[in-house]
């Protein structure tokens, strides 16, 4: 057996100085040689721990074996049989906490770069359609119809899986494009929108009908869907309601929720204003409040729009930041400044109602709180002001109450999430399933897809019985 190689093939990336001013993808992807080299590190261990770490059950050793053998169509086939959105997952999944964390090599050195290989296979598929077998013919229709509300990763996964089983699926999406957070939240430089649309096209190629501009709760209610053509409804409407700080001055001009800022930049392509019609304020000094992935994305977008200085304002220390390590490092490399142990007290403005500063307290870490992280405590008398002209609040989101308030008989929690069975996604309302961020609160792409897979299986079983 060849000697273990404990170092992974590095990912080619755009230079930080250059990429800080453009919206092109940061990570450039492996070349075929790099992918081959990385795949060859896999020892094909019999225990296959990596596959257990995958929420959608991809046969990871299988597709890597196909890569080792240079059999790309086979790699595509294996990957796609479990994951309808590999180009997305390869880019944004937190592999370091999932499959890669379980890799046998992780005990001794760097785990196999499973995410990067997944991305390589997905990108190869996109540009080599002619080398692939014609897709399997669609199964005969079962005559059953399912309505999927929301076209984020949860909704797309349910739709694809049910269509493959012969059910007729219609997705209702409130916005003018499908993809959910993948389109409006995660920026182009981490997840190119062309890739998302490519994967959406794959789902519609399975016969799924996509109805855009359709806000369920307004244009039809869930009950009306059930009373009309649909035997089952899946709710995958995500957690789209932004939280604010609830401190004085929050309605000043120049203060955005991360959702608004990212929507203007990503979905509406505000970074190309005035070629695109939607404006977005390019701050000179921008503060982003929060320490998660959404905060990192907002800060890096603000920098790319042309801000001189961008700060992350976070009330705990770097160790407690919920953002992925890689994204924190990317942000630091690009010159984002971290103001840690800093908590906003109020926002200051001028007489035109424009924000001019953010007054903050210094914080100290105290005893661990319910989340197990050390709780930040205010240092009395430590107030200071950071000069800013744009502030982005990235504190997280909760589900939009529209669905719950217009659907009879759904159970919700105090946080506004919909109660659903953890194994099947079934809600207490007959004929209605739910999954993704609407159930868990803001989580991950892959957990939303996992929930979608489980719900699809449960809905299929239900439709067969009914």
């Amino acid at each position, binding site marked *: 057996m060849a000697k273990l190689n404990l170092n992974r093939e590095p990912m080619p990336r755009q230079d930080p100085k250059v990429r800080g001013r453009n919206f092109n993808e940061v990570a450039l992807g492996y070349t075929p040689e790099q992918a081959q080299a990385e795949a060859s590190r896999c020892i094909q261990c019999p225990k296959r721990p990596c596959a257990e770490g995958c929420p959608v059950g991809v046969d990871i050793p299988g597709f890597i074996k196909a890569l080792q053998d240079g059999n790309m169509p086979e790699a595509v086939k294996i990957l796609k049989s479990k994951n309808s959105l590999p180009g997305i997952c390869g880019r944004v999944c937190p592999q370091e906490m999932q499959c890669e964390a379980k890799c046998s090599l992780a005990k001794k050195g760097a785990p196999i770069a499973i995410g990067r290989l997944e991305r390589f296979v997905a990108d190869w598929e996109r540009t080599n359609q002619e080398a692939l077998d014609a897709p399997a013919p669609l199964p005969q229709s079962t005559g059953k119809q399912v309505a999927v509300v929301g076209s984020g990763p949860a909704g797309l996964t349910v739709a694809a899986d049910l269509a493959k089983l012969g059910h007729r699926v219609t997705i209702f999406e409130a916005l003018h494009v499908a993809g959910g957070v993948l389109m409006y939240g995660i920026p182009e430089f981490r997840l190119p929108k062309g890739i998302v649309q490519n994967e959406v096209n794959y789902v519609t190629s399975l016969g799924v009908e996509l109805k855009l501009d359709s*806000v369920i709760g307004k244009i039809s209610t869930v009950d009306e869907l059930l009373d009309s053509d649909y035997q089952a409804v899946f709710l995958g409407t995500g957690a789209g*309601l932004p939280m604010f700080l609830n401190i004085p001055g929050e309605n000043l001009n120049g203060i955005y929720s991360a959702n*608004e800022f990212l929507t203007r930049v990503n979905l509406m392509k505000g970074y190309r204003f005035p070629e695109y019609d939607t404006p977005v304020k390019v701050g000179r000094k921008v503060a982003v409040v929060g320490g998660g992935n959404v905060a990192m994305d907002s800060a890096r977008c603000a920098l790319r729009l042309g801000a001189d200085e961008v700060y992350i304002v976070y009330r705990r220390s770097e160790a407690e930041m919920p953002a992925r390590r890689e994204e924190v490092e990317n942000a630091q490399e690009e010159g984002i400044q971290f103001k840690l142990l800093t908590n906003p007290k109020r926002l200051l403005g001028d007489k*035109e109602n424009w924000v001019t500063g953010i007054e903050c307290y210094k914080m100290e870490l105290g005893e661990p709180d319910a989340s197990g992280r050390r709780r930040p405590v205010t240092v009395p008398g430590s107030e200071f002001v950071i000069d800013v002209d744009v502030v982005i609040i990235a504190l997280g989101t909760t589900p939009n*109450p529209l669905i719950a308030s217009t659907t009879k008989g759904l159970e919700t929690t105090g946080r506004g999430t919909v109660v659903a069975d953890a194994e099947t996604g079934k809600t207490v309302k007959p004929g209605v399933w739910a999954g993704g961020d609407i159930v868990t609160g803001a989580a991950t792409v892959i957990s939303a897809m996992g929930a979608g897979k489980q719900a699809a299986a449960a809905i299929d079983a239900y439709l067969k019985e009914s």
Partner: protein
Amino acid sequence: MYKILLRQDLVPDIHLFKVEAPAVARKAQPGQFIVIKIDEKGERIPLTVADWDEQEGSITIIFMEVGATTHRLAQLKGGDFVENFVGPLGVPTHIDKFGTVVCVAGGFAVAPIKPIARALKQAGNRVISIMGARNKNLLFWEDELRSASDQLIVTTDDGSYARKGLVTEPLQELLESEKIDRVIAIGPSLMMKFCAKTTEPFGVKTFVSLNPIMVDGTGMCGCCRVSVGGETKFACVDGPDFDGHQVDWDLLMARQRIYLKEEKCALEQWQAQAGHHS
């Protein structure tokens, strides 16, 4: 894609479109709005539903040319298409039997107020409508609003037609001369603010339809936040109708100016491209 079934120019800068959107037409109610986006590069802008026809499957919107998007919209003709048309959004205007209701419309707001007046009248109210414009050439739908109301008062700022003055003057007189149970005022922010100021001493409940800048119109961005009674509300989902006596008008008007610089740039670019002289 949504087809423009009909275009009418009501006055030089204000246009009516009838848009084919059967699913929206089935659900539309007075006081609701839609979000329209012309094409791939377009902005999402909210417009109130001025009428709907369930049988024809159409929604009528009326818009005034103020900036790049509304100018671009005004280039479209009957038979053309817009890419996106979402609705009906927002909470419908509260319609009930109140007694005597005064509906006040400033400028293009004759359009949104008409279905409200009609619904109030159908609910058994006595409806007195007041419509005002800067001058005679900007008036439209006088007959439509008259037939939706029991009584109509028309004003022009310069006196070029009907009564000279602002809409608040006949409103004040009505409040002084008889018992008014409710006032609904729609129009430019300043006009709504002054209507609310006029009714406040009389303690008459006054509802206004707020028009902050919006993006999605579904409650996911918070761009449309307004302050009502000291509380932050999202106008697109909590409104657009609010108690006019509780609205922080200065905040609303300040937030409407966020993109003044960008709007000017967009309009100039559009004018240059269209070889247009305004």
